[in-house]
């Protein structure tokens, strides 16, 4: 057989893998030679977590075409379930790598369950209900976690809601209501973050370039036509959303285990919007764009633009509006499509069957 033709999608996925691997190698080398400042080193794990959150949200917004405004809620679920498990297993599982692996899997699992619970009623509806419900979900999770107490004592694990007085003498609080989880052993490393990013990217690209991924994109492009060729709409919407939620959960667990303290307020509505800004600025459906914009927009306010970091949400809002205006302007789009052939998108009329 002759040489195999590499499709555009395959090429795109390999470029993304390449960029991520190159960035990892570069940063590892820089860190080992001492060229990176300690502020910078401290940002590596959170950046990885936000990259994972951004690419997972891109699966929902860019590939599935549904708007989710509560992605931080899934991160929160993953963060607190993952960190709780990691702390509870501290004595029984000595290996940090194994403990992190368990924590990430538990975080992903719990976030997937919540994604399923949120998705099953909402994704059956047509319209922007997912945005509304996920917005509420994020706030609900924040409130629940703020009032949740988990502790461990001689007789085992205890869970309390609203009431923190759950332990016998000598017990240790793990999740202490509004104070969150403190005293976390930092077991997330840059390498582990890199590995999880790669796994998420491989899952997303392989999904998108498979039968299920085509079904998901088909129902994004034209729901009525997708139904007419026998695609089960609810099943594929739910599949994409649950995968997306579980990745956000993994990101949350990774994030929490790289911090000393995590509180529920860390994953509020602003964080959800922050992740959405990463996705919109990186380009809907463009994973490499999400990786880059998450990195740049997370690192800039924390380092060189530190003095402006109070205005972060203000600036992002302005940038977001500007991007929306520019990409919806027919003249600018015509210019872009003239510069880059095959880049114009056409709107479908969904009303007339």
């Amino acid at each position: 057989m002759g040489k195999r033709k590499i499709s555009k999608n395959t090429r795109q996925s390999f470029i993304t893998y390449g960029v991520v691997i190159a960035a990892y190698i570069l940063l590892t080398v820089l860190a080992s030679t001492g060229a990176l400042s300690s502020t910078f080193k401290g940002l590596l794990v959170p950046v990885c977590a936000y990259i994972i959150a951004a690419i997972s949200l891109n699966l929902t917004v860019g590939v599935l075409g549904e708007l989710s405004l509560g992605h931080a809620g899934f991160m929160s679920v993953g963060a607190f379930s993952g960190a709780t498990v990691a702390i509870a297993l501290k004595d029984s599982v000595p290996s940090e790598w194994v403990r992190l692996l368990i924590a990430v899997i538990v975080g992903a699992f719990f976030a997937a369950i919540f994604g399923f619970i949120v998705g099953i009623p909402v994704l059956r509806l047509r319209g922007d209900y997912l945005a509304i419900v996920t917005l509420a979900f994020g706030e609900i999770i924040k409130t629940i976690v703020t009032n949740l107490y988990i502790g461990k004592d001689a007789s085992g694990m205890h869970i309390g809601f609203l009431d923190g007085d759950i332990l016998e003498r000598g017990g240790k609080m793990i999740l202490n209501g509004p104070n969150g989880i403190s005293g976390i052993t930092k077991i997330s490393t840059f390498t582990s973050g890199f590995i999880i990013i790669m796994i998420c990217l491989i899952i997303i690209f392989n999904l998108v370039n498979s039968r299920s991924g085509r079904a998901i994109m088909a129902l994004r492009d034209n729901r009525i036509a997708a139904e007419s060729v026998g695609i089960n709409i609810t099943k594929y919407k739910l599949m994409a959303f649950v995968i997306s939620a579980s990745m956000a959960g993994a990101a949350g667990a990774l994030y929490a285990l790289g911090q000393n303290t995590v509180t529920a307020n860390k994953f509020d509505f602003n964080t959800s919007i922050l992740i959405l800004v990463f996705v919109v600025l990186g380009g809907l459906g463009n994973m490499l764009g999400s990786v880059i914009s998450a990195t740049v927009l997370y690192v800039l306010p924390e380092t060189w633009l530190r003095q402006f970091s109070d205005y972060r949400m203000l600036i992002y809002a302005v940038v977001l509006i500007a991007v929306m205006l520019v990409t919806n302007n027919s003249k600018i789009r015509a210019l872009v499509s003239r510069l880059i052939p095959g880049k114009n998108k056409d709107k479908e009329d969904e009303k007339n069957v």
Partner: protein
Amino acid sequence: MSDFKFEKGKMVPVPSHSIIPERDIGKTPVLECNHLGIDFGGLRAVDDFNFTIGKTEIAGLIGPNGAGKTTVFNLLTKVYTPTRGTILLNGIDTSGKNTVQINKMGIARTFQNIRLFTNLTVEDNVKIGLHNSKKYSTIEGILRLPSYWKTEKAAHERAMELLSIFNMEHLASWRAGNLPYGAQRKLEIVRALATDPCLLLLDEPAAGMNPAETAELMENIVKIRDTFQIAVLLIEHDMKLVMGICEGICVLNFGQVIAKGTADDIRHNPTVIEAYLGKRGAE
């Protein structure tokens, strides 16, 4: 309701609402509509629609604008749920089924205003049509197990084979939204065929085509019927196409069937002429 007779030891319904009774007698119909109707509020969009299509018949559904032709398609594919009446597909009642199940039972359709997956390639559009025939699980897809490679290869070959009906293989890597209008219409037909139907519904397949393209389309519809051995029901305003290839024609006006028969019957039917041209034309 329909009568029954014995055929190969099985009870089969005798079509009761055939367009051309002598032609369909003894054949099990692919599609049988009995007293089908739908109301939108107080409007009777379609009323008492009785219709039968034989196994490899090309049938036409014509009528003035707003007659309810597309509504009939939407009833057949369960985009709308009928208010009255039954639809039998290969003798099986389709009531209570949804659009997806109807497609799996064997009805595929195209749309009056083209509905392609515009951001995907032509090949992917056809592959989405193959969704239920070339299967592997999501896990197999994500892990790229051997079944993924095998099925994807089969799907690619089948997609190319189907595209070759309209000589569109060279367009396979184009974005569907960038195709010229005529090619988009053809791609919709290919996608519908990919779902392996026994009845193909074409909603104005020749709209926007020039005479040469229409002539080619006519040949292709007949070719599709002969190769796939399926029934075709088409809505069309181009009378040359309808009269040229439809073996049975049903005329609809204000949701009512006003005439059924062969092309010649319809051409000389005074009621049909009146519906299209008004009273004076019939004189």
